[in-house]
C-alpha cells in the first residue's frame, strides 16, 4: 500500500488552549508535561507534536478515549480550529497559509464533514440538506437537487427526500449527513464520531454502508472513533491518540499483534482477536508440518479458518489468491496469535 500518494499530512502540530499559548508552547517544547502545564500556567495541552500521513483512497482512523484530542485534531484539517504551531498539508499545500476565500473553497469543494450529532439544518428538507454543499457553492437549484437525489438514493433514503430531519430516526439522519458529504463531491471526507450516537445494530449497518461506498468511491476518509472494534473494522491506517499525543500508528493488524505501549495492550485486551485478525497478518511463507485441510483467502479472519479446520490442532491451510498459493497458516500459529502479546516480548 506504499504506492499511494499522501493526500493529507499533519506535521508537528501543537494545540494549546489558554490565554497565552505561545509562551506555553515554548515551555512544552522544553519538555514540560501536560499535567505540569495545566497546574503551573492554567493552559491545556490539547495536541502535542502530531505527525500523521493520510494516504489517498484510504480510511485513516484516529482512535482515542474522550479527552484525547481526536475531535480537536480533525477540526484542524479544515481549520475549524486554528493550531498553535505546525503544518497541515493537503495535496502538499499548507492549509494554514490559506486566505479566507481559499479556505472557503477548500471546505466547499475538497473537504466535507460528517458530524456526531448529525448537525442537519432542521428547517430544510432531506433533499435540501443533502444538497447543502452544492447550494452553498452557488450551483443552480435543479442541478443540486438532481445530484442530492442521486446520493439520497445511494444511501437508501429514496422516499424520504421531502421529509424534515426531525421526522427521521437517528440512523436515517446520519445517512442524510453522509449523503450531504458525498454530494459535495469532495475527495476528502472527515467523519467526526459519525456513528457513535447510533445504536449498535444500526452502527454496524452504517459501517458496512461506508465500506461499501468506499470500495466504489475511493475517497480519502479521516474517521474519528472511540470504539476499537469500529476502528479495526474500518481502518487502513490506525492512529491511536492518548492525552493529545500519538502513541502508536500503523496497520491495525500490526498494532494488534505488536502493541508498543501498555495503554494499547489494555485497549486491545478485550477484542475478539479471532474475528479481527486476518490470515495475511500471520501466514508463513514456508509450509509447516501438518495436514492440509483447505484453502483460505488472505483477508479471511482467523475465526473462519478455525471453523474450516474444525479446531483440529495439526491442520494447515493453504492461503491462496486466485488459485495460486502464496503462503500457509497453521492451527498452532492461529492459537498463538489469539493470545495477546505483552510489550517487550519478541514479535
Amino acid at each position, binding site marked *: 500500500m506504499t504506492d499511494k500518494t499522501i493526500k493529507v499530512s499533519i506535521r508537528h502540530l501543537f494545540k494549546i488552549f489558554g490565554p497565552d499559548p505561545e509562551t506555553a508552547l515554548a515551555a512544552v517544547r522544553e519538555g514540560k508535561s501536560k499535567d505540569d502545564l495545566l497546574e503551573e500556567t492554567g493552559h491545556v495541552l490539547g495536541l502535542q507534536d502530531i505527525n500523521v500521513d493520510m494516504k489517498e483512497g484510504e480510511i485513516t482512523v484516529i482512535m482515542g478515549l474522550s479527552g484525547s484530542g481526536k475531535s480537536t485534531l480533525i477540526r484542524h484539517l479544515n481549520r475549524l480550529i486554528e493550531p498553535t504551531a505546525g503544518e497541515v498539508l493537503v495535496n502538499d499545500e499548507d492549509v494554514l497559509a490559506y486566505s479566507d476565500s481559499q479556505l472557503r473553497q477548500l471546505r466547499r469543494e475538497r473537504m*466535507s464533514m460528517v458530524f456526531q450529532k448529525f448537525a442537519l439544518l432542521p428547517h430544510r428538507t432531506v433533499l435540501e440538506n443533502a444538497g447543502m454543499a452544492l447550494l*452553498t457553492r452557488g450551483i443552480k437549484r435543479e442541478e443540486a437537487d438532481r445530484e442530492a437525489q442521486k446520493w439520497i438514493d445511494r444511501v437508501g433514503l429514496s422516499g424520504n427526500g421531502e421529509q*424534515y430531519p*426531525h421526522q427521521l430516526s437517528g440512523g436515517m439522519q446520519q445517512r442524510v449527513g453522509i449523503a450531504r458529504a458525498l454530494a459535495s463531491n469532495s475527495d476528502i471526507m472527515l467523519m467526526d464520531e459519525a456513528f457513535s450516537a447510533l445504536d449498535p445494530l444500526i452502527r454496524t449497518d452504517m459501517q458496512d454502508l461506508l465500506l461499501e461506498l468506499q470500495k466504489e468511491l475511493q475517497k480519502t476518509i479521516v474517521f474519528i472513533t472511540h470504539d476499537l472494534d469500529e476502528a479495526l473494522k474500518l481502518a487502513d491506517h490506525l492512529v491511536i491518540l492518548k492525552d493529545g499525543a500519538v502513541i502508536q500508528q500503523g496497520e491495525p493488524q500490526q498494532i494488534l499483534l505488536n502493541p508498543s505501549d501498555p495503554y494499547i495492550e489494555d485497549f486491545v485486551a478485550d477484542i475478539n482477536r479471532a474475528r479481527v485478525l486476518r490470515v495475511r497478518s500471520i501466514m508463513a511463507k514456508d509450509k509447516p508440518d501438518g495436514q492440509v485441510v483447505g484453502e483460505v483467502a488472505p483477508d479471511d479472519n482467523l475465526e473462519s479458518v478455525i471453523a474450516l479446520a474444525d479446531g483440529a490442532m495439526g491442520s494447515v491451510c493453504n492461503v491462496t489468491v486466485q488459485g495460486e498459493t502464496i503462503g500457509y497458516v497453521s492451527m498452532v500459529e492461529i492459537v498463538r496469535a489469539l493470545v495477546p502479546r505483552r510489550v517487550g516480548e519478541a514479535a
Partner: protein
Amino acid sequence: MATYDGLFDTLGLRDWCDAEASDGPMSMADLMARTQGGDEAAGTPLRDLPFPSLDALHDACAAIPQSRALTKGLETGFLDIRDSLRFVVDPLTQPLSWALENMLWVMTETPWWVMFPVLLLITWAVGRSWKVVGFVALVIAGLAFVDHYDVAMQTLAIIFVCAFICVLFGVPIGIAMSRSDRLQGVLTPVLDMLQTLPPFVYLIPLIFLFSVTEPKLYGIAVILYAIVPVVRLTNLGIRLVDPDVIEAADAFGMTKSQKLFGVQIPLALPNIMAGVNQTIMMSLAMVVIASMVSAPGLGILVLRGIRNLELGVGLVAGLGIVVLAIALDRVTKASLARIDASQSSR
C-alpha cells in the same frame, strides 16, 4: 448654625464656603426654620442627625449647591440643547409622522365593508387558521356594533405603524447584538432602562421636543417602549441556534451572510416572532398612555372616563382594548405556531 458646620471648619474650608455665599431663592424649609427661630440646632441629638445630603451640606456651606439645582440644571440643560436636538431629530422622524397620518387616514376613511374583509384576509395570511379569523371577525364586529369602530381602527393603525417600525429597526439591532459581545454589553443596560422607565416619563422630554399636535410625538414614545422585546429576543434567538449546526455551516464553507440568512435567522424565527408578539402587546399598552399627548383611539375614551368620571365610557373602551389585545395576540401566536410546526426543534 447647621449640623455640618464643624466639618467644614475642621477641614479648613470655611473661607471657601463663605466666599461663594449668595442669596439664592429661599426654600420652604429655610423659611420654616427661620420662623421657628431655629438657631438651637447647635446640639443636635444623634437620632436627629440628618444624612449629609446636598441640602444639609448647603446649610453649613453655601458654596455647595442645593438639590433643586440638579433638577433645575437638567431642565435648563435640556432646554439649551433643545433647538439643536430638534434640528437633527425633527427631519429624521418626519417620515414617522407621515406614516402615522396616512395610516390613520387609510384605516378610518376606507369604508368598513372594504376594511373588514381586508383585515380578515391579513389575519388568514398571517395565521392560516379559520378559528382565529372567526375570532377576529367577532371582535371587530363587536366593536363596530357598539360604535367603537373608528377609534378601534385608529388604535390599530398606530399599532401597525409602530410595530412595523419596531421590527424594521429591532431585528437588525438584535442581529448586530448577537454578533458582538461588546455591543450586547453596551445595549443591554439601555434596553433595561427603556423597559423599566415608567412609560409616562418618555412623554416628558418628547413634549418639550415636538409640538403636541404632531403624531410623531406619541409615535416615538410607543416605539421606544415597544422595541425592547423584539431586540432582546432576536439577539437571544440567534445566540441559541445550535452550535453544532453553525459548525456544520462553517465546515461546508458558508459565508457569513449565507450563514445569517440561511441558518441563523430561520432557526431564530420562532424567538423573533415571540418578540414581535410582545412588541405588539407593548405598543398597545403604550398607545393608551400616549392618548394623553393626543394619540387618537380607544385610549382617548379611557382618558375621558378617568377625567370626567364617566364610568361606562371608560369601561367599554377599556374592554375594547382588551379584546383588541386578545385578537392581536391570537393572530401573532397563530403565525408563531405555524413557523414552529414547519421546523419543530430536533
